[in-house]
């Protein structure tokens, strides 16, 4: 019941054109600035958050334009799911993997500006002048029985085929992601016995690492916790100092080569390099044993 009220409120909100204008003129600059900031700010996370702000403004605009369903879907799906997904990937890729704003391709920035302004100009001026003064019929009649009901009716009548196609698309997308995300396991399935053997092979850290916060301020994939010995922990089962490309050599300053395990489970897929390290040691050991 309460969402009906909210919907109704959203409806009144839009009816009084002055209210709408006021909201618009407040939120429009915010949205533009957020967008501008998003593309100009160094850190990726900041731009993600700015995008979220922009999405919220647009959501409000939907509400203003008698499209409450879309507004909320925007907030829930877009801001909620997609942006979270972004942040999640950001975390995996490296939170501070912000890139310097120095342009590498000659003439890229200049071209972007020129064509950008050109494109905007083309869109705004001629089309704007064509649309100017058109008030439109408003959606009162269409939304008569409520916006969601109307959309639902349309969705399952006129656009039924499109609806099915899009759902198929989503299924394909999901499968696609799994395919892209999946990685063959190099060695055999590492069962519990194997883990135990690895744990106690010579020269490894047998005891569990100190809990987070004991020494390191945070232990995410990109900024690993500091080990007592001074080296950095390289994710689960990192061995200080012995692994051939041990973390000590520190890859590119801004993102350590350790990477968190893939978002989806499917076996402890430590980052490639690290695993490589174990194998080498294992192989070394293995060879030793067989001989």
């Amino acid at each position, binding site marked *: 019941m309460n969402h009906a009220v909210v919907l109704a409120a959203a409806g009144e909100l839009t009816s009084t054109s002055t209210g709408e204008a006021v909201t618009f003129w407040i939120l429009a600059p915010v949205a533009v600035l957020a967008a501008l900031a998003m593309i100009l700010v160094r850190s990726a996370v900041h731009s993600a958050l700015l995008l979220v702000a922009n999405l919220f403004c647009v959501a409000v605009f939907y509400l203003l334009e008698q499209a409450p369903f879309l507004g909320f879907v925007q907030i829930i799906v877009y801001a909620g799911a997609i942006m979270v997904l972004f942040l999640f990937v950001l975390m995996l890729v490296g939170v501070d993997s912000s890139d310097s704003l120095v342009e590498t391709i000659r003439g*890229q920035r200049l071209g972007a500006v020129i064509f950008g302004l*050109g494109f905007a100009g083309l869109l705004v001026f*001629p089309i704007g002048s064509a649309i100017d003064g058109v008030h439109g019929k408003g959606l009162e009649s269409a939304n008569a029985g409520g916006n969601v009901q109307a959309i639902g009716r349309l969705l399952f009548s006129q656009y039924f085929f499109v609806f099915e196609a899009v759902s198929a698309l989503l299924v394909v997308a999901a499968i696609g992601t799994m395919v892209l995300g999946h990685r063959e396991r190099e060695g055999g399935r590492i069962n519990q016995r194997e883990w135990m053997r690895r744990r106690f092979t010579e020269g490894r850290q047998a005891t569990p690492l100190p809990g987070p916060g004991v020494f390191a301020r945070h232990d995410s994939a990109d900024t690993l916790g500091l080990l007592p010995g001074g080296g950095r922990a390289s994710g689960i089962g990192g061995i200080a100092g012995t692994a051939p490309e041990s973390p000590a050599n520190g890859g590119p300053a801004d993102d350590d080569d350790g990477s968190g395990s893939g978002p989806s489970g499917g076996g402890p897929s430590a980052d490639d390099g690290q695993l490589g390290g174990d194998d080498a040691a294992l192989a070394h050991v293995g060879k030793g044993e067989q001989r």
Partner: protein
Amino acid sequence: MSPAPVHYAAASGAFSLSWLLIALPLAGAAVLLLGGRRTDRFGHLIGTLAALASFVVGVVLFAAMLGRDGDDRALSQHLFSWIPVNGFQVDVGLLVDQLSIVFVLLITGVGTLIHIYSIGYMAHDPARRKFFAYMNLFLASMLLLVLGNNFLSLYAGWELVGLSSYLLIKFWEYKPAAATAANKAFYMNRVGDVGLAIAIMLMFATVGSTSYADVFGAASANVIGYGTITAMALLLLLGACGKSGQFPLQAWLPDAMEGPTPISALIHAATMVTAGVYLIVRAGPIFDETQAARTVVVIIGAATILIGCVIGCAYDDIKKVLAYSTVSQIGYMFLAVGLGPAGYAIGIMHLLAHGFFKAGLFLGAGSVIHAMDDDQDLRHYGGLWRKMPITWATFGLGFLAIIGFPGLSGYFTKDRIIETAFDKGGTSGYLLGSIALLGAGITAFYMSRLFLMTFHGKPRWSSEGENARHPHESPVTMTGPMIVLAVGSTFAGGLFVLGHSMQDWLEPVAGEGVEGVHTFSPLVLTLLTLVVVVGGFAAAWLRYQARPVEATARPDSEVTLVTVAARHDLFANTFNETVAMRPGQYLTRFLVWLDLVGVDGFVRGSAAGIGGLSGRMRRLQTGFVRSYALSMLGGAVLMVGALLLVWGG
């Protein structure tokens, strides 16, 4: 008065055999060429027989023609249709009339004698069979030239004669000089032939046909405009000069002496070089219509007389001297023929006489060269009259004939030319007459010089030492024809001139010379020429008989400018080279370069250009996703802009 309107009766009776005249030597040539090695042993006999048979047919036709009355002696025989294309109907046919039968007799007569002479002369040459084959080919083409009833068959004969002269000049192929001389002869003949070809085309364009009957019919009916007919005549003259080695195109004749001597006698003295004169006389009706063309002919004739005489005095090579004497004698014929209807008959008479004595002289020279182991330098001769009495006698008769010793043929024919030149009247008449007279004098000088240096004076050769010489009289096969020709050269002149026999004979074809007023009475004129001739002989006697002759010619530095010029053919060759040959070479080299760099360069260049362009375009694919995105945006902007322009406006 132009000749009677042109009409030819259909050949019948004996005249239907006139095609045999050409067929016999042609068959001879074919048999010898295709026969190959097998016919080597008797090849020369076949050749001579063919020539003799052709001569016999000629005599038969001559006799048959004598049987007919004056006006009915032009008989035309149609053989086959050669090039039938709508308006341009060309048939190959033979025309036997007074003029052509005279030439046939000269060609086949002298030809047969020279064939016999060649048996001896070429006895030791391995390729004798080929020599006789080419000689027969020459006879056939010369006969085609004089017997054709159509300018195009004349042209065909004309070029085939050029070909046979080319083949015979380069007969001794291993000598590079012979090959170049042959090429030069063919090129210069070809230059002349261009003139003849264009004349024939002009005839077709104006008259619609190239046969004698139509062209001369139109000419004598003076239907053709003065300008066109003069152009036609001048073009014919260019052709004649090319073939007869007259003033602008005379450089090739002396070089043609590279060929064996019988060839020099037959082709480059008696027959081929006279083809030009035949052309002018045959095309009489055309030349009658244009005074301008006739003056040009006369000028060229006079100029060539002087050129021939001057150079003749400077050379030490016996054949070169005789060659230049031929050039000047033909100059006389051109002078005579250029004087219009009056001169045609006289020109032909001199031509026939010249045919006899010049061939005789050349054969004599050949026998001398043969005796002196192919040494042609006069300064190595001397006192040969004892060793070679027959050659001395026949050569002497020919010598007397050419300088115009009274009673011999040269005297009759050359004097008439001088007389006709004077009779032309006016300043030009005097000028031409005096040139002819001067020519006679100089001819006497260089011919006496040649005669004395060869046969009289102290022998400048020795029968021992490294270049030992054993002059001996030539075998009978060689001396026989020389004797016949010597006899011919003594009596021919009288036979032709006395009683106007030749003039009346040629009258229907060549027209009647008007018995106009004589600037000098004939008697005075004869005395005048005699004085000049004796003066020339005396000068030669003093110079080359009284004082000993040096064994080697004096270097250019000590010799007068005229002699130096004469030794270099009055710089004719240098002129030809600087004007035509050298620029031609540079142009060829430049064009070869241009073709390689220019035209081909353009082709290769455009290919390379496209290659380069695509190389640069390749760079656009930078690999950066963002630059592609930028170009996409650019494209979008342009598209939207264009759409707005098209619809928005």
